């Protein structure tokens, strides 16, 4: 068995979200999901499309953290570009459903409603966060997954302060044509992998990271969790996946800065 870091375990767990997705755009928001999307493409979902973080589609998922061709205005010669999606075309792609995104979440509730907008009363927030960005449209047009680096009762409260990405309960009340486009695929945290397969579309623990108990995950969650019977153990990175992460995708070690731990 190879030695692996917790960040590397989480990257592999995130990458699994895109398994079987075929020829769609894989968007990972933040360091861990970005490495994970590229890892999915290099290991088991080779048809995925990946951007350079901006307008260019890269045919060769390469180290993150280096200036992108879009920022420089010139494509470095070592980079192979296979396409172009400027922001003005991005909403066409995602409203057509050709995408699966993994976003962050300041709050995520029992039905997978996500909040990235603000904390407190929206009219005068205690903390202004990102704003809803594209989360409302993403969540009713294509699959969404979420990455939570610190699994705590604050991130998983009974109710979120502003619904940005739509969860299963709200989707259930939407007209059928939109409801069938809604999917919360995976929620990966530093403790476990969850989905919305619990009773009435509630959060369910699918797998526990090595050494983590269900009770620990439950105690870090602000509402009752369902569990697959019995939850599996999250797969650990293979030697080849570790090589891709360490030598190809993140040689500068940006994953270490996340301070990930169980």
């Amino acid at each position: 068995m190879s030695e692996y870091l917790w960040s590397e375990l989480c990257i592999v767990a995130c990458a699994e979200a895109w398994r079987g997705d075929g020829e769609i755009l894989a968007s990972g928001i933040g360091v861990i999901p970005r490495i994970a999307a590229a890892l999915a493409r290099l290991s088991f979902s080779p048809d995925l499309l990946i951007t350079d973080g901006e307008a260019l589609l890269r045919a060769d998922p390469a180290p993150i953290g280096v200036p992108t061709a879009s920022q420089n205005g010139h494509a470095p010669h070592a980079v192979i570009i296979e396409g172009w999606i400027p922001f003005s075309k991005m909403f066409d792609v995602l409203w057509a459903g050709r995408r699966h995104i993994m976003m962050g979440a300041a709050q995520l509730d029992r039905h997978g409603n996500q909040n990235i907008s603000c904390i407190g009363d929206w009219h005068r927030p205690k903390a202004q966060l990102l704003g809803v960005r594209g989360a409302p449209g993403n969540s009713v047009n294509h699959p969404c997954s979420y990455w939570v680096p610190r699994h705590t009762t604050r991130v998983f409260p009974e109710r979120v302060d502003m619904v940005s990405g739509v969860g299963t309960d709200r989707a259930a009340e939407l007209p059928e044509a939109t409801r069938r486009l809604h999917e919360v695929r995976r929620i990966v945290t530093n403790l476990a992998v969850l989905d919305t397969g619990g009773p009435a579309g509630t959060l369910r623990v699918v797998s526990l990271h090595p050494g983590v108990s269900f009770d620990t995950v439950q105690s870090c969650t602000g509402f009752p969790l369902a569990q697959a019977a019995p939850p599996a153990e999250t797969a650990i990175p293979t030697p080849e996946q570790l090589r891709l992460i360490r030598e190809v995708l993140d040689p500068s070690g940006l994953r270490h800065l996340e301070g990930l731990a169980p």
Partner: protein
Amino acid sequence: MDKRTSIDAAVAELRDGMTIGIGGWGPRRKPMELVRAICRSPLRDLTVVSYGGPDVGMLCSAGKVRHVVFGFVSLDRIPVDPHFRRARESGTITVTELDEGMLQWGLYAAALRLPFLPTRAGLGSDVERLNPELRRVASPYGDDEVIAMPPLKLDAALVHVNRADARGTGQVLGIDHYFDDLYCMAAERSYMTCEQIVPTEALLDEGCVHSLRINRMYVHSVVEAPRGAWFTSCAPDYAIDDAALDDYARAADPQHWDAWRDTNIGTATPVGQTR
């Protein structure tokens, strides 16, 4: 036809209470020279529509803004513009918070003079709950219901591009043109700054026809403003000035604002005088 003018003459055409759309995206290719001139002006009570970056934050801290229509206000490396954060948390502005795609759709509806454009974006989210003026509309062709995104009509659009000619054709040499053409189409009047004004016959010297993103029929004034997007980026001419962006972010602290403003924005200059 010659649409060239000065920064201050362009800003002198704006009025209190106007709805102003600002091109670019986050900390990228923002018409900052125009934004700074607005901060120096006596203008007030503006409604700003933007894929926001330091344009929105700076106008908020300068006391020019009544209302912001936004999906985000970000400096990228700093996920939320601290000036905007402060304005929100202290309640000095009101906002319309939209999904990013809804904002595009609203500008497009305004550009095409339509009463609305249909979209699923926003359905079921709190964007619907917190924008009670948004209506759903039933499909006349089948069993479906979507949000009817109303037009975001602009009194003025402000954009910054790499090259332009004196007639107002705008050229974007960077890899992403963002929504600058749409802002100009949605506005009564469009004010375009550029790194360099070139003769029309030289427009294709540096970029192919695809780079001629903004047609002159949508542009009312053009101003040559070298480094006019600074400290945001204007690829490929220059990248984000990280040090200046950090300085700006620190100036969200009221203790630092006055000194930063005096150095970086200055005080009013007479109309028509070129800085």
